């Protein structure tokens, strides 16, 4: 595409205005006016419509505000509602800062992109100053479509008149080629290809690591192999006789003799009172009622549905007079089909359950 343009060069913006008036009065078509700084009133003079940049800014800002508002609302009410100190999930006041920042960000980005796009400005755009006068220093340039024949002589005459009147405007004729710089566009897919081909498929491999000091612990992992003795784990067996914190040892073994001995010797460390019995009842209702029934009459829900054979009732002859030690022993180690409960109930809790069972024995 080849266009023939004429350039008229001025050295001062006031003279430029006179030149524009003269050219417009004589019906020349002004393509553009180029100035080293924004000359006020120029846009009206050459009949430019007001820029739409403010509208773009408003629309983009509104999109940003709505995005901010709906995204935060969605996250906090639907996607991941989390209770922060009892505040409502839809906490609009605390969304405001982010909404505001999103508004500004979208608006600013939108306007700048619109400005660059509409003005066709992009990195490394050709600006051939060899054929066009420099307009970024102190020259004010009117760009005209090159007129033909008589009009060209008229133009020459007008400019000569201006030369006498003003400070030597110059005419420069140039041909301007417009073309799109394809080199940069070609780089974009290349960058994409590089970017994506640099990914690896093997997710087990972390890739190249540098300075991983804080990623890997310097101490040995607890269950890893012992570097001194491969057959052993890093986890050490506790010394003989050590007990966990707040653990009360129970000296009687899980044998028939132990059962009898416990019946004779074991004394409940808790003395019977309403609070302990009440707590024992709660534990009984959690762990025992399903077979033993609410009152120990062996009518629990599992027994009634015949999933389990009935245990002896607390009112039966065997259990009515059963000493506390044997009750405790049975809860700890289990008895017949009943499993051990030591892992579920602490020593104290078992004592409370014993007190409750004894209260049932007395009632029955």
């Amino acid at each position, binding site marked *: 595409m080849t266009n023939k343009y004429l350039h008229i060069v001025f050295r001062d913006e006031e003279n430029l205005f006179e030149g524009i008036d003269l050219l417009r009065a004589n019906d020349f078509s002004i393509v553009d006016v180029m100035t080293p700084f924004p000359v006020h009133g120029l846009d009206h003079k050459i009949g430019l419509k007001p820029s739409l940049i403010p509208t773009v800014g408003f629309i983009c800002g509104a999109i940003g505000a709505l995005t901010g508002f709906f995204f935060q609302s969605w996250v906090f009410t639907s996607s991941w509602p989390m209770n922060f100190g009892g505040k409502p999930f839809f906490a609009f006041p605390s969304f405001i800062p982010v909404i*505001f920042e999103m508004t500004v960000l979208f608006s600013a980005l939108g306007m700048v992109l619109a400005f660059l796009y509409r003005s066709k400005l992009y990195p490394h755009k050709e600006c051939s100053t060899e054929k066009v006068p420099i307009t970024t220093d102190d020259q004010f340039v009117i760009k005209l479509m090159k007129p033909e024949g008589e009009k060209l002589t008229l133009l020459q005459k007008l400019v000569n008149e201006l030369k006498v009147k003003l400070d030597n405007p110059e005419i420069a004729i140039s041909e301007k080629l417009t073309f799109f710089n394809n080199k940069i566009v070609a780089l974009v897919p290349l960058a994409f290809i590089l970017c994506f081909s640099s990914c690896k498929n093997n997710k087990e491999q972390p890739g190249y690591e540098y300075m991983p000091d804080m990623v890997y612990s310097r101490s040995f992992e607890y269950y890893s192999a012992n570097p001194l003795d491969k057959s052993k784990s890093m986890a050490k067996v506790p010394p003989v006789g050590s007990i966990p914190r707040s653990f009360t040892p129970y000296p009687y073994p899980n044998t028939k003799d132990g059962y009898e001995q416990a019946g004779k010797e074991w004394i409940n460390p808790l003395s019977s009172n309403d609070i302990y019995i009440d707590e024992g009842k709660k534990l009984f209702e959690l762990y025992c009622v399903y077979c033993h029934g609410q009152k120990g009459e062996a009518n629990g829900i599992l027994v009634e549905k015949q999933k389990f054979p009935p245990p002896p009732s607390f009112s039966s002859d065997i259990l009515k007079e059963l000493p506390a030690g044997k009750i405790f022993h049975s809860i700890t180690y289990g008895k017949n089909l009943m499993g051990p409960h030591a892992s579920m109930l602490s020593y104290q809790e078992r004592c409370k359950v014993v007190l409750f069972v004894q209260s049932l024995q007395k009632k029955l």
Partner: protein
Amino acid sequence: MTHESPHREPLISGRKTYRQITQDICSPILGKPGKLWYIVISVTTLVFLYGLSMIIYTLWKGIGVWGLNKTVGWGWDITNFVWWIGIGHAGTFISAILLLFRQKWRTSVNRAAEAMTIFAVICAGLFPVIHMGRVWLCFYVFPYPNIRGPLWVNFNSPLLWDVFAISTYFLVSLLFWYVGLIPDLGTLRDKVASPLKRKVYSWLSFGWNGSAKHWERHESLCLILAGLATPLVLSVHSIVSMDFATSVIPGWHTTIFPPYFVSGAVFSGFAMVLTLMIITRKLMNLKDYITIGHIEAMNKVIILTGSIVGMAYLTELFMAWYSGVQYEQYVFMNRMQGPYAWAYWTMMTCNLGVPQLFWFKKIRRNVIATFIIAIFINIGMWFERFVIIVTSLSRDYLPSSWTYYKPTFVEVGIFLGTLGFFFTAFLLFTRFFPVIAISEIKNIMKSSGEYENRK
């Protein structure tokens, strides 16, 4: 033509033509830098590299190499963050708020101040990122779809607002600065001699040719960006102050913080602009563009914002007494008399006392006095953040966990490193970009320069 009062002092001294302006502002870029420039930049680069090595050391070893402990979890890192962010605010203040107020004197300093903003925000952003410890996971602070749920960030937290505020502030400042710079880069492209430089400036100037339509869009874009940046700059430091104000630490939990922080930010920022511009106008021979009148105008902003800051200090003290809350009262007694009293009184002297000297016109118009006072303010404002953060934390709730915090050489090194980066970046900027907005200064030349007197 607008009529200016004959008594108003011109903003550009010397009778310049458009060509002279271009020549004056471009000459440092076209010519070779002097010996002094090389000496200064080698010093600042060394300091920057030292800071960089301290950052790498921190990443290598972990945050344990800092002086922080269980009680004082925020120390120099957050102090530096708030200080740098505050410095950045002056640039936006000059370029946006003063543009809306049509203050013509801003054109001589706005470009450099905007560049300063960008470098300061980079320095500021560094600190929250490295104080996370595991820097490589810093992208966790952004709400992006992830395989952890997706687990989102907490939009109720001021720390998250900070992420949005700082990143938006950085991007918008960068856009504002660069869009304003495009016409001047065009000027440079047409001015430089070497083909390589021409190619680079051609890349950077986006094919600018000063078309009337482009100028129209450019002006309306800059005006609206200024309109957006104005509430933005106020929001950024308000949100930074909410990091403290929404917590329940005595001394932090106060509603005065947002306006107090914003005015403090502009106060410290102008001090830094003055520090830089006084050196720049001397080194680059720009005394005709950055006149004593400019320095005086900035000093007036300093006396205003400095007095607001001083008022805020006194209001805090008054409120502590008036509230009748003994914990609040203790915090301020502790600041004045406790182990950090030296920091408190440094802050009071530098921020409340010294800037009041600017009430005297002679001092306001004295370059050396201005430079010294600006340095005092820079130091004082750093101590303000230190006092707020460290004194409040070091004596919080349980006397058994009270402690005295001292930074290690690593923290000091990182802070020095950011100073090194800041000055290195600014020196490079003065060498490769126009320090003064060429097109904007040409625009005000006739109405505010000595041009009219020629006729």
